[in-house]
């Protein structure tokens, strides 16, 4: 049951610098912790995040065990044309989630 919160401005003027905020639900288990009986809790993290703007990659990040649970990633880009932002999170154990948001550029 993974859910994402995306904040992309609905409208912008051409050339505006816009902030994009993303929040993905994930436990981000580091792989360094042990259970009470001493067994290692296997690593389970998101390893990669990408954002595409009308197909072009505008942001990419690699994630590591030190990231908090439910990683919040915010970044900036330039609004060039109306269209769609597509977000993708890839992680351990075949984790793969996508989300998208539209923007109207005037």
């Amino acid at each position, binding site marked *: *049951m993974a*859910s994402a*919160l*995306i*904040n992309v401005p609905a409208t912008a003027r051409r050339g505006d610098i816009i902030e994009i*905020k993303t*929040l993905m*639900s994930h436990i*981000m288990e580091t792989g360094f912790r042990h259970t009470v009986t001493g067994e290692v809790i296997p690593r389970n993290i998101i390893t990669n995040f990408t954002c595409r703007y009308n197909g072009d990659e505008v942001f990419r990040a690699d994630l590591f065990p030190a990231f*908090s*649970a*439910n990683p*919040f990633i*915010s970044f900036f880009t330039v609004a060039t044309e109306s269209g769609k932002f597509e977000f993708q999170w890839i992680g351990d154990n075949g984790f793969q989630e996508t989300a998208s948001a539209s923007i109207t550029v005037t």
Partner: protein
Amino acid sequence: MRRLRNISLSLLAAVAFTSLIEAAEIAPGERRSGASFMSVETQAMQNDATANPGMLGVLDGEALWTRKPVAGRACADCHGDASSMRGVAVRYPAFDDKLNRPVDLEQRVNLCRVDHQQLPPLADESRDLLALTALIGRQSQGMPIETGADSRLQAFIDKGRDAFMRRQGQLNLACTNCHDDNWDKRLAGSAITQAHPTGYPVYRLEWQGLGSLKRRLRNCMIGVRAQPYSADAPEMVELELYLMSRARGMASETPAVRP
């Protein structure tokens, strides 16, 4: 000898009197939400619905609200849209006629599951239970807390207040020693807050997840090295009830973020 005893008696009385004064509750005008003790950044995180990680729990709750069990009805089949829950969470813990005692929101959700959905109760602090209480709590965000308006609750509020004032644990501290007497100070770098539970379930950054008021109370009890109450202990609900009634009139922030 007799004179000496008189002096020591009056000294004892003076000590008892001072500790009574110290245990005074916070004046209504001086009440503050735990949010006001947080950094500006954490406050901003709480106030932005797309940056508040507690909202992920609310999203999960929305999915659970409409999910149909194999047999029986979904929450939405009886209650309709989750927005019908507006004003509900700010009344909890509330008096239950059948049980003849107060129940908190977690217990209410589980009673509903058992009585009306023929489902097993959700485990204490489980992801699903926190998601549902976050969803229900979110509907009342910004509304004033009303808990304790029901006169049948008064006896239970008094019991909760007694527990709040009672010294406990190896450190021999009562809740009031920190949260009434020393809320303007810090403990190991962290703000001692006024113990107004305005935003539960909260997303606590230290926990990296949502947690209920009961989890927070267990935290505090372990902190003073006392034996925490079990999850469904009536004492726990009484304490929750007293704390919520203490925050009566303050705005609900669910799902709040805390450091």
